[in-house]
Every structure is written in C-alpha cells, then in structure tokens.
C-alpha cells in the first residue's frame, strides 16, 4: 500500500470526473437540440459518443494503476462509513464502464443506423446491425445508468467535501497528493 495517490492516479481521477460531467451535460444538450440545428445536433451526438468511448481505456488504465500501485492507507472513519465508501466506490467503478459500453451498444442498435466515428476521424465498427427491440432495452439502461453514475459521483464529491470540512484529508489526498 502506498502512502499517497500517485500523480497519474490523481490526474486520471479528475480527468474522468470531468469527462463524465461534461458528457452528461452534452447528452442533455444533444437530445434537446431541435432538428433545425442539425449540424450542432450531429456534432454533439458524435462528441458525446467519442468522449464516452474515451472513458473505456481510461477506466482500464485506472484499474491497472490501482492494482499496481494500490491506494493510501484509509483515514480514521467509523467501520460502517468505510464499508459504505468501499461499496460506493465499487458501484462507481462498475458504472464508469457500464455507462459507456451500454451507450455504444445502444448506438449500434439504434434504428437510425448512424455510424460511430471517434472524433469524426476513426470509424468504430458496430458489433451488430440496428435492432429496434434491442434498442428499446439498451437505451433506457444507458440513460438510467448515466443518471445513477452522475448522482453517485455527486454524492461521492459531497461526502469528500464534508470530510474535508471535518479535518479528514480524503479530498486533499486526491487533490494535492499529500
């Protein structure tokens, strides 16, 4: 177990947090945009898909770093809070991979059949052809999981601030490293 989070771990943590929130806001915008703003709608959809796909290798990298470098020693918290924090983090990790994967699969199943082109440069082949029935299942799952991820991340952040205000170094360790 290391004494602090490594620089790479901290940067990845904040980069992924920023990506999740930016992509969530982008999703709200792209859905709300009218078809009369077609260019903006297409661009926001493709950007949303690209940022979502970017989360997948970052997630794998972060998990690899966690396995390789571990985490700092736990701060002094009641046992139940430790357990709750560990459970919350596990669910966060699960949602961090589930949301983009579900999003990509629902893009593949979407009856409109628009391709996924990573930042409008690299075409990413869809694993199956458009399928309305599958889309009807995947789309709400992606949406529900995304809301779950954002709400849980907000709760995670709020608790970190709460502990910081009570003198615990949880937020400081992730922000400044010590």
């Amino acid at each position, binding site marked *: 177990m290391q004494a602090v989070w490594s620089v790479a771990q901290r940067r990845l943590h904040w980069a992924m947090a920023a990506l999740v929130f930016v992509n969530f806001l982008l999703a709200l915008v792209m859905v709300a945009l009218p*078809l009369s703003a077609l260019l903006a709608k297409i*661009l926001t959809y493709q950007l949303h898909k690209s940022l979502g796909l970017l989360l997948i290798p970052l997630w794998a990298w972060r998990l690899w770093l966690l396995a390789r470098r571990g985490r700092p020693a736990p701060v002094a918290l009641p046992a139940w809070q430790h357990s709750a924090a560990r459970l919350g983090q596990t669910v966060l990790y699960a949602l961090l991979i589930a949301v983009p994967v579900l999003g990509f699969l629902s893009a593949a199943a979407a009856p409109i059949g*628009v391709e996924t*082109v990573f930042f*409008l440069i690299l075409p990413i082949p869809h694993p199956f052809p458009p399928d309305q029935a599958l889309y009807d299942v995947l789309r709400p799952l992606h949406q529900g999981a995304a809301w779950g991820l954002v709400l849980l991340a907000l709760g995670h952040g709020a608790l970190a601030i709460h502990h910081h205000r009570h003198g615990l170094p949880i937020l400081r360790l992730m922000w400044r490293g010590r």
Partner: protein
Amino acid sequence: MMMKPNQLLMPRRALAGAVLPLLGLAPLPARAARVFRFDQSQGKLEFIARHLMVLTSTGQFSRFSCELILDPEKPETARVAVQVETGSITHAYPGAADLLRSAAYFDAERWPLARFSGRAAPGGRIEAFDLAGPLEMRGVTQPFTLQAKLARRRRDAATGAEIVDCTARGEISRTAFGMVSDMAATGDRVQLAVSVSLVIG
C-alpha cells in the same frame, strides 16, 4: 454441395423461360418483354444521405409503385416507371420525417409525387444494366440514372417460390431539386436505392 457464384447467376435464356409465367398472365412468345409491377409490399425504396462526409443516415418511402418492363434476352430494351408518394417518408429519428416532408426538403404538401421513367442504356447485361431518364421531383426535372442489378436466383424458404433479387441505385444532387437546407450538415449527393424480390416461379 457448394456452387460457384457464377453458377448461381441466371443465364439469360433460363431467366427468359423462368419469368414467362409471371403474374398469372397468359403465356407470351418466348422472347417478349415481361412486365413486373411492384410496390412497397414487395420491395423497399430508400434514400441515403451523408453527413459531415463520414456519417450516413437512411430513410424510406413507404408508398411507391414501380413498373419494370424487361426482356431478359434484350436488357437494352428495358424500361421502368416509378411513382413515389413523397409524403410517405419514414425515418428512424424522431421528427426527421416531418422535417423531410416540409417545404425545406420534399415539400410533400405542394409536390406529393415524384416520378422517374427510365430506359436502359445500350451495352447492358442482364446482371447489370443502367436505366436512365428524367426524374421529376419538387417541380424540377433532372436527368437521372439507376444502376440496376439482377442477383442470383434463390428459393424463398417460406413460400417455396423462385425469386430473383433486383437492386438499383442512383445518386441525385439535392440542390438541383431545390433542397438547399442544412448544407453544412448534410451533403449534396443523396443515394436512392431500390431493392425488390421478383417472383419468377
């Protein structure tokens, strides 16, 4: 036993014999042209637009009628007449069909029909031949060419009927028909694609 693809292609003479009993019509002389009439119940008519040069989206016309006159011995004499109800557009993206029916695109209220009548260009083969002629849409008439292909003969598993799949593709310039909206998002060239299964026996 596997058959080589070229063995599956229907020879002209064999197709000529096979298409004769079509549509319950009285037998005609062996070399006469045959009339194939079909609509949305036997085939589909799609349009494919490109966006930002790397993306595509596809819509359909759910009501159209087509008459193809084809003498398999003389594909250079083939003729086709297609009539499409422009208001019958369907599109998977919510609201897109309404936009495409609007005055900015097909203007379906003012121009409810699009028509194409084409004749085969010389030099065609029965497996692949061009049908060229005027396409009238949105009150504008422009020359248009469909590249038609008759695919391999197959037997429909459900009905046991012998079928030849026919596909035809052509490309239009939408601006030539007065559809100039969203040029930054959607390219000028739009593909039209027809696919139909012709029952030959």
